[in-house]
């Protein structure tokens, strides 16, 4: 089973049926896998805050939802995370491409990488960092924790993780 198949299997096994995505190079494989998965309604969003609105609606409609996005989106979505997702206690797993870490070819990505964990910590968002290939084994437990606690949860996946995967 590839890492992308494993990630999508964990989403499905945790009852997630609605996934919104804004693409990133590192996430291309998992987004393809989401698209192929019949158990998941895949709805690409134009902006990540829009995507979180879609997820909030699906969640209230009884479908567990998740968002897949890049870490630059943390800058876009702070207001939505605070005044919608956290304020209304909506569970939201966020599978995030952690650009700007070791191996990054694009200098500008580092500018957001240095703020990513600090922002998530400031927002009191439980944050998990996948660096080694085996870290993916924790995904199932993280998803269960997210729906138990009804909070947004960040899963940062860096270049080393995707390289080793």
């Amino acid at each position: 089973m590839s890492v992308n198949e494993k990630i999508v299997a964990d989403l499905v096994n945790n009852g997630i049926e609605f996934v919104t995505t804004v693409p990133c190079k590192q996430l291309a494989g998992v987004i393809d896998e989401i698209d192929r998965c019949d158990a998941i309604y895949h709805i690409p969003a134009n902006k990540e805050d829009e995507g979180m609105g879609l997820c909030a609606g699906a969640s209230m409609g009884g479908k567990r939802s998740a968002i897949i996005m890049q870490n630059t989106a943390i800058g876009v979505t702070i207001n939505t995370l605070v005044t919608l997702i956290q304020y209304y206690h909506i569970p939201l797993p966020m599978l995030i491409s952690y650009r700007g870490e070791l191996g990054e070819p694009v200098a500008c990505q580092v500018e957001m990488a240095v703020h990513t964990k600090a922002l998530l910590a400031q927002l009191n968002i439980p944050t998990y960092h996948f660096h080694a290939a085996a870290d993916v084994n924790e995904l199932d437990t993280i998803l269960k924790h997210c729906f138990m606690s009804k909070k947004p949860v960040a899963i940062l996946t860096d270049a080393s993780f995707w390289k080793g995967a």
Partner: protein
Amino acid sequence: MIRSEVLKSIIPVISEQLVVCNIGLPSQELHMLDDQPSNFYMLGTMGLSSSIGLGLALAQREQVIAIDGDGSVLTNFGTLPTIANNVADNYILLIIDNGSYGSTGDQPTYAGLKTSLTEVARACGCENVVECKAEDTAEALQRALASKQMTIIVCKCESGNIKVPVIDMDPVVIKHRFMQEVRARNEQ
């Protein structure tokens, strides 16, 4: 007619429906006029009423009316292509277009100037886009509900506000009450 009068005129049509209502005065007015467990009030997050409504419509089978404003649609313009390309026939987006940012003091929006939200929605690929005068909104909504086709209604009305109290219900209570209602209707 101003927005609060439009809302008052559509209460007989929307009272029994699942409604997602835009932040600020629209939610406060709806809450004051006709508070229902089937109403979801946004207390924050400008722009996302149409997105929350679409997510809700795609996730379950009951009809959903998302009430939005011109300013809010302008702030989340990406929503219109997403709506056009993810057709949910149980979804109606009602844009109450008063050409101004009502909740912040009626500053003009571009929708009240050169930009037609009706034309933008059509250009984005939305198939059933209806523009109506304020006094025809209830009828347009009734027709959209009966058609069982995804519809965008752009209601052109005057700007202006009335005094309304803020909503002091807790967000989690609003959500819990709404979700119970959604679940009960889908179980029938």
